[in-house]
């Protein structure tokens, strides 16, 4: 198996390299960083529904679709990508997806630990610190005759830009996403107050991978690989590929395993109801309800938000709680029933504005 320790590559090339190697059937570990920022969407995501393309255009941030799973993310030179490519037929690798993630995350976890961060793998497929905050996101997929596993060591992270590249229904939602990311995603810089020398991190990561998968043979990007990447770049930057329509409906923004932000909107007779809720392990941790309806007593809307915290994100449970609140607090909301609030929250299909 080869080692391509390629340093910083122009944005898309840092991702194209593993796509090309997989198609070529070349087994390798790639360590790379993007020289300039880019936004990346998962294979099945609809770019127009997931990315604020206008913001990206205005700020010169290109976006690309990758052929592995996961969601929209912002990538820049403060991430060290590790990309492992192996043939499906290689008996040295797990076949079960959960084992692939768990086993192949070991080197990244060990790398963090060598620098004093207690990192561990967590389903679904993140690396987290001892407080459960995400410190690396991972993904994978089948490409050609190969399987690919990818992730990134987070040296630092631009939370603000990350929240801005995402397509959101309104700024309140964006604030929620930003705040949740700040609380749930950490980096080497945050954990250590400083970033260790990049080369030390890279060499540690390589050593840890070699402990797991055996000695790697250093390789350089030769003409054949570069040509393959250039060919792929034409395909990957084509409008047809970038703006491929998929029928996948965004259901919220996943911050880390178990934490997501959802948005609901429902037109009741008495007005529009908007909700933004943060869920952790399918329970509401925070919820904001707004809209152009009337609600009396006025302060009780905030009380209802508080009451709904820790509620299971499940229709029956929500219905019961909201109905009970209506009765106990003698809510008067012309044209807006407790059922309307339930509908707004539970059927949160954030069809974000096109």
């Amino acid at each position, binding site marked *: 198996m080869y080692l391509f320790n390629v340093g910083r590559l122009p944005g898309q090339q840092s991702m194209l390299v593993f796509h090309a190697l997989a198609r070529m059937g070349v087994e390798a570990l790639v360590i790379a960083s993007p020289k300039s920022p880019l936004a990346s969407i*998962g*294979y*099945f995501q609809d770019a127009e529904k997931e990315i604020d393309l206008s913001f990206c255009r205005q700020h010169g941030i290109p976006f690309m679709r990758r*052929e*592995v*799973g*996961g969601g929209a993310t912002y990538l820049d030179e403060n991430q060290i990508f590790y990309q492992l490519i192996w043939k499906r037929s290689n008996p040295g690798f*797990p*076949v*079960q*997806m*959960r*084992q*692939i*993630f768990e*086993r192949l995350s070991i080197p990244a976890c060990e790398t963090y630990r060598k620098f004093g961060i207690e990192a561990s793998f967590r*389903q*679904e*497929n993140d690396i987290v610190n001892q407080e459960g905050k995400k410190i690396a*996101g*991972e*993904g*994978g*997929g*089948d490409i050609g005759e190969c399987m690919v596993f990818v992730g990134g060591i987070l040296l630092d992270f631009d939370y603000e830009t990350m929240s801005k590249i995402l397509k959101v229904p309104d700024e309140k939602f964006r604030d929620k996403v930003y705040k949740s990311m700040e609380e749930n995603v950490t980096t080497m810089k945050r954990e250590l107050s400083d970033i260790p020398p990049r080369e030390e991190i890279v060499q540690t990561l390589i050593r840890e991978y070699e402990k797991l998968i055996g000695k790697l043979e250093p390789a350089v990007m030769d003409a054949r690989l570069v040509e393959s990447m250039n060919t792929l770049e034409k395909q990957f930057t084509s409008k047809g590929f970038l703006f491929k329509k*998929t*029928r*996948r*409906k965004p259901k919220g923004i996943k911050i880390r395993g178990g934490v997501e932000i959802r948005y609901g909107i429902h037109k009741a007779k008495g007005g529009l109801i908007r909700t933004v809720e943060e869920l952790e392990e399918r329970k509401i941790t925070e919820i904001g309800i707004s809209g152009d309806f009337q609600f009396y007593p006025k302060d009780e809307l905030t009380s209802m938000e508080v009451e709904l915290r820790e509620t299971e994100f499940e229709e029956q449970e929500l219905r019961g709680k909201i109905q009970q609140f209506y009765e106990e607090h003698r809510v008067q909301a012309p044209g807006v029933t407790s059922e309307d609030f339930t509908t707004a929250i539970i059927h949160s299909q954030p069809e974000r504005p096109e």
Partner: protein
Amino acid sequence: MEIEGYQFPEDLYYDKEHYWCRVEGNVVVMGTTDFAQKMAGEIVYVQLPLVGKSITQGKPCGALESGKWVGRIYAVVSGKVLEVNEELEDSPELVNQGPYDRGWMFKVEPSNLEEDLKNLIQGDDLVKFVKSEIIRVAAET
């Protein structure tokens, strides 16, 4: 039948990519197995082949995502896609909940059924294969 806790209806044919097919007259219905859906975990998206598309036995014809992994759907027999399970668009979890009924994936007009069925397994061969896969997966944990 049940093989070590995994369901495998006996009237189906199976391939070694963990997909099944059921012959219904001139139509073949396809989906993924109970074993495969359990190994995959929660399926969050299924991309099915387009109606009218020609597919070839053993070749990828669609994709699905679970746990941030994009995996391939393989054609169990060759033929032309007649119909896809549109319910999976909104509810991919049906594949987990009912891989042999509500989670069916697509229907095909077969082009080479007799020959293709010879490449598929049932009965004792199926038991042997599934048990070997279970052992292989267990060895990874």
